[in-house]
Structures are given as C-alpha cells and as structure tokens.
C-alpha cells in the first residue's frame, strides 16, 4: 500500500541568462494510461477443477513530476514526486526521489536523499516514468516495494558515484536499508541502527553501447514480531535476518538494438524464531531467491520497437522466505511480447501480451495469467 505523504510546495525561480549558473528550475514529467485484460487460470482447491478469472480495466499510471535545477557551481538538486492510483482506487502522493548533489569531479559525485538503489542496470536507468522504458511493465524483480517487489528498490541515505576515463564506473550507497516489512521504505527513521551498504561496478567496453557490471548489497533486516492485523494476518513474522544481494548485468544499447540481461540472487540468513515455524533457536535458516530477465528490442525506422522479454523468479528449494513472502520451491516465469510505437518525440503507444505462470511446493498446480495490455505514455 502506498504511503500517504504531504504535498510539498514547489518553488520556481527564474535564473539569469547564464547557463546552468543559478536556480533555473526545470519542471518536466511523465504519465500514462493503460488498458489491461487478464485471464487467470488456476485450480480451485475445493473442487479440484480449473477455474478462469477474467478481468479488464483501464488504469491510470503515475503522474510523475520531475523538478531539477543547478544550485550554483558543482551543486544541483532533483526531485521526483508521483501522484499514483493505488490498488484501493484512491490516489496518493509519494516523493520517490529527492536528491541534492555535489559534483566536484567526474570521479566523485555525492548525493544525499532518496534515490533508486544501484542494484543493477534497470533500477539506476529507469525510474517512475514509463515513457523511457520500452515495454509497458518493469521486470518483476524490479517491482516497487509497495507492489510486492523483492528488491530494496529505493534507499534513503548517501550515494557516491564516479566514472574513470569514461569506462570504469562505480556507485556506492549507504542507506537506512530494509524495514521490518518488505513494503517499507524507511524515509523517516531506521528500525535498527545498522545501515545497508551497496557497491556496483561497471565497465563501458570499447564496443559502443556494451556495458557489463556487477554489485553486492548487504543489510540487516529487523525482526517483525507484530502482526499487521488483529487476527494475525498480514506480513509474516520473522526474526532478525542478514541480507546479501548479488547482481550482474550485461546490456547493449546501440544501433537500434536494446539487449538487457540481468541476474539477482537474494540470500537471507534468519535467526530461528518460533513465530515463523523455525522451532529450533539454534538453527539458522538460509533462503536463496534467484531472478533473471532478458529483454530484446529493435527499433525500425526510428518509430517502431518490437520487443520480447523473458523473466524468471525462483524461490528457495528448501524453505519459504517469510520476509519476501516467496514460497518454497517457487517457480515464476513470464514471457512478454510487444511493440512500442513513437507517435511523436514525446508520445508513445505500446501494446503487449504477457504469459505468466507460477507454481510452488505448496501449490504444485501451475496457475497461469494471460494479460493483454495497451498503453499510451507521454513526456511533458
């Protein structure tokens, strides 16, 4: 569930004619509207018969308001605030990014605030504006926290990044890290004193457009001993855990080709806790969740971009992960085929068909969801 935040007051200052000198705040934004039709097929446990659930709806995308300006030599700031339609059919306002940045050199740039954690390529490249990304949807591994995502996509803290000789890049994050439940982005206080650290290294190869990279994220997850709801339902209870996320990417974006490939492995080490079924307090429990995706698109005549994406999330073979609600033995795969049409420099139409299948040890009969989506997105 998206958190509700107070709307800020946006101040616009008109600077002098000198370029980039003072606070000439630029306002831009992105938005989109989607139509989706789904057909979910699963086995009804009471009758053991296959059931089809069909839905169709128009839904509003985010209104993504982006502000940025230079604050004088070497200082700049940006914010990304999103008006979003929530799952409860209400709109909420979220401040998704807020950064002040100091850039004394190409090798060292430091930002403080809320940002997208450098957990690979997609999260650092595509933020909340759907217009930038080729497909309608983000890879499942990069769903936002309040959408049930499994990665700490947002962080609040410090980011340091640099690029050496235009080839060797690094991004370092020091942040509040995970909260007691996976939907939480700790924007106001940290539930524990331990901070998350993350380091991503990448290399822009001499082949124009080809980049490879890898990273490591480490954090501690505070225990959750309080049920969300009085009847005990809600996020699973769990003891304190350590988290490691390894990621790797290989991307090629040049000459009308977009080829994105990423890998993530999330490892949790839980201290045993009777509340989550681990009855032996001397036993530590490890879960490993693996996610991959591969996306290929090719742009024809500068306007048509057909694309295909395969994605997979695999749960731990021996244990469910209570923090991320990933069932034991989960196998979740998605194929997406679509096309993007750039109607103008700032308006794009997309259409895609997605086939999603999911099964686990607890639910061995695969459920499948077929989705047909049409989207119009624009930049302003």
């Amino acid at each position: 569930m998206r958190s509700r935040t107070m709307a800020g007051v946006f101040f616009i200052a008109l600077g002098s004619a000198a370029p980039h000198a003072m606070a000439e705040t630029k306002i831009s934004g992105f938005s989109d509207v989607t139509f989706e039709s789904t057909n979910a097929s699963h086995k009804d446990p009471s009758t053991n018969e296959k059931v089809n659930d069909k839905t169709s709806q128009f839904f509003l995308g985010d209104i993504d308001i982006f502000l940025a300006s230079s604050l004088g030599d070497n200082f700049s700031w940006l914010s990304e605030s999103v008006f979003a339609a929530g799952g409860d059919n209400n709109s909420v306002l979220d401040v998704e990014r807020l950064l002040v940045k100091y850039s004394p050199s190409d090798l060292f740039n430091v930002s403080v605030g809320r940002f997208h954690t450098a957990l690979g390529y997609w999260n650092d490249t595509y933020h909340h504006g759907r217009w930038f990304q080729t497909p309608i949807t983000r890879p499942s591994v990069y769903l936002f926290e309040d959408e049930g995502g499994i990665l700490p996509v947002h962080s609040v803290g410090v980011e340091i990044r640099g690029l050496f000789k235009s080839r060797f890049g690094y991004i370092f994050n020091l942040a509040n890290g995970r909260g007691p439940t996976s939907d939480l982005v700790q924007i106001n206080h940290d539930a524990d004193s331990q901070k998350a650290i993350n380091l991503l290294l990448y290399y822009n190869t001499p082949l124009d457009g080809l980049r490879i990279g890898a990273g490591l994220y480490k954090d501690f997850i505070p225990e959750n001993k309080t049920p969300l709801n009085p009847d005990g339902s809600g996020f699973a209870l769990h003891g304190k855990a350590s988290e490691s996320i390894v990621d790797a990417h290989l991307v090629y974006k040049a000459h009308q080709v977009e080829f994105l490939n990423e890998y993530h492995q999330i490892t949790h080490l839980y201290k045993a806790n009777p509340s989550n079924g681990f009855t032996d307090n001397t036993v530590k429990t490890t879960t490993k969740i693996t996610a991959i995706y591969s996306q290929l698109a090719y742009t024809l005549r500068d306007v048509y971009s057909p694309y295909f994406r395969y994605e997979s999330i695999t749960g731990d073979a021996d244990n469910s992960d209570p923090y991320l609600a990933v069932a034991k033995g989960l196998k979740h795969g998605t194929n997406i085929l679509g096309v993007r049409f750039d109607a103008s420099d700032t308006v794009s139409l997309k259409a895609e068909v997605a086939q999603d299948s999911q099964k686990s040890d607890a639910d061995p009969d695969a459920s499948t969801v077929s989705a047909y989506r049409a989207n119009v997105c624009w930049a302003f």
Partner: protein
Amino acid sequence: MLRAFLKASFLVFLAGLPTVSFADTFIVTSAENKQSLDLDQVISIFKGDVQKWESGKSIVLAVPDLASPEGEKMLEKIYGNSAKEYKKFWMQKVFKGEASNPPENKNGDSMKQFLKAYPDAIGILPGSLIDASVRKVIKID
C-alpha cells in the same frame, strides 16, 4: 579570347587546389581554452560522461540545430543516433540526475558569442565561420 582563356585557366587552377575546410565541421572552444582533446574525449564530453575540464571547471555544452549540416554531422559522428534519440538521451541524462541541463542550442554567430562569453564552453562550428575568437579543437570526422 585571352580573357576567356585566363578565366578558364583560373577555374582549372581552383579545381586543382586541395579541398578547403569551409564545409568541414569542427569542435571549438573559446580562444582562452588550451586543453587538447582527441575525438574519443570529445565524444565523452558531448555524451555527458566527462563533465569537467582538467582545470576542474564544469564544461558547458553548446550544440547546433539538429537539422543543420553541423547538427547532422554531430548526430552521426558523435552520438551515432537520430535527432529523436538524441533528445531522449539528454532527457534521460537529466532525469537520472547525471546532468543538470541538456546542452545549450546555439548556431553560427550566436555560438561564437556564447563561447566568447563562457570560457568553459565547448561547441560546434562549420569551418567557414571559425575566426580568431574561437579555438579549433578537432575536426569531426
């Protein structure tokens, strides 16, 4: 007859001269900027990967109209993509927070005046407009 002969000789002479640089396109800076650059470095600058001069001062980018001959040469040789992709490239650069602003848009005399006014600027001019007020860095080729 003599005049016609002389005229024809002169035209033959001109045709035999090495190609003049009037149609060539050059990366230029203000006359005060002495830093030398190769094409790879120029590409890194115009793509926003390098944003500081060796002096530590911030580089100010100025590009010509994308539909102009200089603009088309820039798109082909430096960015390797179309005008539409160029605009999206800079929108994304700013949106990611990697750049505060897209390049300034300047042409001809306004480009020269801009480079004169901002010593940390770098821009693009056709050879025919280059004079002592700007410094030729490298030909885009």
